[in-house]
């Protein structure tokens, strides 16, 4: 097909995603790679992080010895509070999400389709752990950014014309950041994904060969 290219590291992908964060944004970061985004927020950009288990204004991990079992994030990790923090119930937390008050969510994915469909919660035949808050986040946040490897471990397409896995949401992805490239859509009314950046060393032919979805340049 083509010489394998190295592409962006996970941290470089997170830095790309951080560029989506604008001053004053309220943001929910999914579990896994999206949490790395917090390390790349530009100076002067003030972001408030939501944790969907009931917290706005999530702080960093505690110092050893300061862990509080009553203070965790949605990944069940111990965290800290900030001077801006508020706590609320799960129903209030998802009212905030479902009601369109969160500016942005950054999530991982198994598959993304050309029409913005997202699959990230179950693989048929494997034990299903549940969708947690992912379906609510993709249905409710104003803008959804997905961070995922461009291909699976066998080189298979994860950015595809249609998802093969059960969906988390339909027509919900606005920005797709992979280790090879960045794509975005102007709207959710049929606009196609447009390539806006490629990792050093990736050619458009490489990218097309490793992509199962139509996109525009």
């Amino acid at each position, binding site marked *: 097909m083509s010489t394998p290219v190295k592409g962006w590291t996970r941290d470089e992908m997170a830095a790309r995603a951080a560029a989506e964060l604008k001053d004053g944004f309220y943001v929910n970061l999914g579990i896994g790679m999206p949490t790395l985004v917090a390390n790349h927020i530009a100076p002067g950009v003030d972001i408030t992080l939501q944790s*969907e288990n009931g917290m706005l204004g999530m702080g960093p991990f505690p110092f050893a010895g300061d862990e509080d079992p009553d203070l965790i994030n949605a990944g069940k990790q111990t965290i800290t509070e900030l001077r801006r923090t508020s706590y609320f119930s799960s129903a209030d937390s998802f009212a905030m999400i479902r009601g369109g008050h969160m500016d942005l969510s950054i999530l991982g994915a198994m598959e993304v389709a050309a029409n913005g469909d997202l699959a990230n919660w179950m693989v048929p035949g494997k034990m299903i752990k549940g969708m947690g808050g*992912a379906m609510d986040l993709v249905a409710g946040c104003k803008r959804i950014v997905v961070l995922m490897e461009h291909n699976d471990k066998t080189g298979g397409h994860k950015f595809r014309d249609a998802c093969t896995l059960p969906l988390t949401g339909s027509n919900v992805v606005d920005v797709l950041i992979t280790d090879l490239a960045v794509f975005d859509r102007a709207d959710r009314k049929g606009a196609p994904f447009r390539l806006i950046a490629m990792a050093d060393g990736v050619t458009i032919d490489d990218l097309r060969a490793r992509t199962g979805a139509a996109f525009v340049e």
Partner: protein
Amino acid sequence: MGKIFDSAVAALDGLLFDGMTIVAGGFGLCGIPEKLIAAIHDSGVKDLTLVSNNAGVDGFGLGVLLESRQVKKVLASYVGENKEFERQYLAGELDLEFAPQGTLAERIRAGGAGIAGFYTRTGVGTKIAEGKEHKDFDGETYILERGIVADLAIVHAWQSDPYGNLVYRKTARNFNPNAATAGRVTVAEVEHLVDAGSLDPDGIHTPSVYVQRVVLGHDFEKRIEQRTVRQREAV
């Protein structure tokens, strides 16, 4: 009045029956009613339907009710931390229904609020929407989700006054205030009993009307699932 009980066993006396539905507060192992769960375990009540965001872990939280095979069905949003759960489910011994976390929280709130059903965009176009009524509002498609009322709600709070007004602490609040509204009877275990008048009336999370029984717990385990820390930087 007399809402304060001496033990979790006493607080649950007369409330448990086989085949009942129990809604429980908690997120992961944070803010779970661990003393009430232990007392339900010891009671031997069975064929339970549990409504809870998660199903505990092996040996703690709702996991103890799974191990003792007291559970018939679980309604949850995420059950990833529990091997015994997986075994029973794959063996067909356990019924499992998933709801998106926000839909689950809203269904519990709705049950407590006398809302029989509500329309949400969450899950439209996914397996979750299959078999549910779809309806368009202002050009967008929504699905109908149902309110949940349980025979019993069990919650964990930080403080209670003698009237059963509850205050939760930090992210241990989570599903607890919602669950407290959705039980035909609600029992709260609390870390502190405080005097009448010592809670700020503007800061009460669960008004006393929702709470029928309160028990003061001792020696809570309050287990941490993911102990994550950062390094102190050198000075």
